């Protein structure tokens, strides 16, 4: 005889806790050779690369802080940070977050997992947390390894900031850690895009490649001319805006906006991935995703977020132009020149002067005066003037050719006179090095024009 069952006695499954699910997911991730290899590479690779590159006569001067790798070990850590933002972190998020859901599709293990855990919601949380743990382990490895490699290979000496001012080793260390913390935000955004792709695209390899493609796409987008508000609304901007920590005063507004945007992308993409996952029909073995689902839960919400972010940033900051204007370029160049002039004077054993005594000014034009002096380009030409404190009423003049990137970073290339900004060796505490005024990097705060205006 069948027992009569009251509705209140309905069978309630005993669900597996998130903590146990998390450990289960970690075990699975760490059992994959490619994940183990990637983590190992994150912890060893940067140290080896920095140590080796620092010993070369030719340095990666086209990478931010690369030209200072002989000067201090802290520069190597920042080179690693720049390279990681462009290439390593998108790859890491692809392999980990981009695969964490689709691997179950490939292996045909979804049903097994659901029967074991008994809660799709907890599976999602456990997978997201496990992939986040692996990512953080990788990022920590990159940071520590880059620093250790630099310090062991070159040593701890003051770091020349992006405006030429010197940061003490302690200050540099603190800011490097802060910069790594800042790039966690865009890393999370890429990871969330990876989760979304992994859920939406199932067994399709596109799920795995999505964060890498997104990272590459964001990198390409940053190289295009566009209004600063749109640039800051892209989730990868914080991969670049940590540069602002290494100027004085620090350029914190673009950095904080970039972090906020990245976190908004991380939350939105994760939420979309969650909704998509909870609606999935697990009775079907083959799940290769669908274009409609990707559009509805992926492209559309993120496109709306981009548009809203750009609108809010434009409204709040008024940054509707490129953010690179004549006054800001001149100010940035003059500041950097003043700091580096002091450094050059010290290395040439000249009389010590202060920035205030130098009273440096710059006058720039673009395209030989034929173009409107604003926006990125390699046709900026600037004249720098400074007061020679040891010569009454005398003014020095030097010429620089500037290649300004759309994201505000520029390289100043000395164009005379040779004795000021030509190529010659100076004697430093770490040996002979190129004249610091010959070529140097700088950074224009894309929001500085609007904040003053």
């Amino acid at each position: 005889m069948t027992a009569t069952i009251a509705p209140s006695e309905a069978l309630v499954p005993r669900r597996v806790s998130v903590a146990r699910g998390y450990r289960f997911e970690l075990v699975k991730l760490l059992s994959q050779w490619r994940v183990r290899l990637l983590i190992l590479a994150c912890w060893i690779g940067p140290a080896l690369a920095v140590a080796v590159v620092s010993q070369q006569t030719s340095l990666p001067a086209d990478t931010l802080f690369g030209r200072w790798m002989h000067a201090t070990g802290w520069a190597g850590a920042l080179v690693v940070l720049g390279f990681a933002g462009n290439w390593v972190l998108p790859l890491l998020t692809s392999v980990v977050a981009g695969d964490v859901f689709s691997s179950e599709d490939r292996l045909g293990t979804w049903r097994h997992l659901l029967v074991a855990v008994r809660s799709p919601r907890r599976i999602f949380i456990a997978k997201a947390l496990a992939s986040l743990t692996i990512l953080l382990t990788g990022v920590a490895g990159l940071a520590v390894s880059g620093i250790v490699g630099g310090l062991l290979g070159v040593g701890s000496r003051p770091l020349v900031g992006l405006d030429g001012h010197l940061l003490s080793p302690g200050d540099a260390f603190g800011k490097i850690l802060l910069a790594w913390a800042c790039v966690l935000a865009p890393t999370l955004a890429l990871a969330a895009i990876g989760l979304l792709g992994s859920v939406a695209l199932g067994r399709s390899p596109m799920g795995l490649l999505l964060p890498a493609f997104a990272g590459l796409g964001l990198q390409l987008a940053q190289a295009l001319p566009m209004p600063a508000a749109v640039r800051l609304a892209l989730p990868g901007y914080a991969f670049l805006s940590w540069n602002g920590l290494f100027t004085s005063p620090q350029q914190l507004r673009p950095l904080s906006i970039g972090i906020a945007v990245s976190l908004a992308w991380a939350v939105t993409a994760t939420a979309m991935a969650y909704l998509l996952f909870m609606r999935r029909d697990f009775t079907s073995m083959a799940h290769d995703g669908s274009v409609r689902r990707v559009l509805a839960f992926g492209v559309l919400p993120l496109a709306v977020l981009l548009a809203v972010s750009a609108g809010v940033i434009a409204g709040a900051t008024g940054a509707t132009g490129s953010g690179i204007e004549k006054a800001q370029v001149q100010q940035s160049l003059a500041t950097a020149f003043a700091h580096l002039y002091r450094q050059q004077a010290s290395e040439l054993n000249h009389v010590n002067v202060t920035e205030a005594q130098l009273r440096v000014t710059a006058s720039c034009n673009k395209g030989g005066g034929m173009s409107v002096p604003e926006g990125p380009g390699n046709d900026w030409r600037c004249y720098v003037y400074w007061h020679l404190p040891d010569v009454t009423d005398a003014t020095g003049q030097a010429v620089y050719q500037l290649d300004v990137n759309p994201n505000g970073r520029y390289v100043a290339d000395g164009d005379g006179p040779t004795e000021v900004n030509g190529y010659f060796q100076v004697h430093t505490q770490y040996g002979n090095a190129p004249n610091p005024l010959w070529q140097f990097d700088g950074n224009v705060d894309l929001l500085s024009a609007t904040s003053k205006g």
Partner: protein
Amino acid sequence: MEAGGIENGFWGVRARGITKSFGEVVALDGVDLDVAAGQVHGVVGPNGAGKTTLLGLLLGLSVADRGSLEVLGKPVGRSFAAPDDVAGFVDGPGLYPSLTARGNLSALARLRGPGAPAAGIDDVLGQVGLTDVADDKVRGFSLGMRQRLGLAAALLTRPRLLVLDEPANGLDPAGKKHVHDVLTRLAADGVTVVLSSHRMDDLEALCSEVTIVATGRVVFSGPVGKLADASRAVDYRLVTSDQPAARQVAAETDGIWVIDDAGARPDRDVLVVRALQPALDELVPRLVHAGLALRELTPVVSPLESAFLALTEQQEADQ
């Protein structure tokens, strides 16, 4: 039958009017299913009949659109979650190839936590005959080994309802014996087992009752023996100590037809006769009375397979 078909006062599985659709495709259409606790019950049907959907419902992988489902005496709710004390797999076991057999099981055991009932890992590996390869990566396992490891994973949770979809796929004779032994022992211990298979010999050997499903509907449900009662003549292999004499006895028995095209078969010494059950019952004493030693009398096609083909073909014809 109902009162005698259950133990401990409840059914292992009881479904009434279960309907499940995927878009416009009706996978299950008003399916009833009764599985007594402690019974090994087979679900048979052609590809696309709805077997996997039905087993998936028992495992909590999907929810029926209509109908009621009781598992282990309690109604199943509307949420996607496997009911407690239920284990098994559909569409093959879910295993992680980068882990060893033991690693897969220990990860699963840790997932359930110390409070959950669990069998020992070595014990379940021994039961399915995988002790020797316990520390090998699953990546190198054959299909049969994966099936056995999937069964071990299900056993690990000490289920009271075991749901297995095609557990005999890829099994060699030794593996098949391990699986049969395990399922028989579980049933003896009161565990309800619901399994699907395309191998009728497995189902006949293991199941006390079967449900035949075709195009989402149940076309037969009941004891395997009942299928043999169908009013359809069945072909039997007959081997005696004197085949010419047996042929003559068979030919003289009412209701027995000797199938002469048996000569095309590789085993030429085997006599094939077609008969209803009553005629067969008449033939056996006649053979003995004629002084012939009866060495083999088995259906050429098993009653289950024969009924399966007849019932599913009929269902298709009706549509």
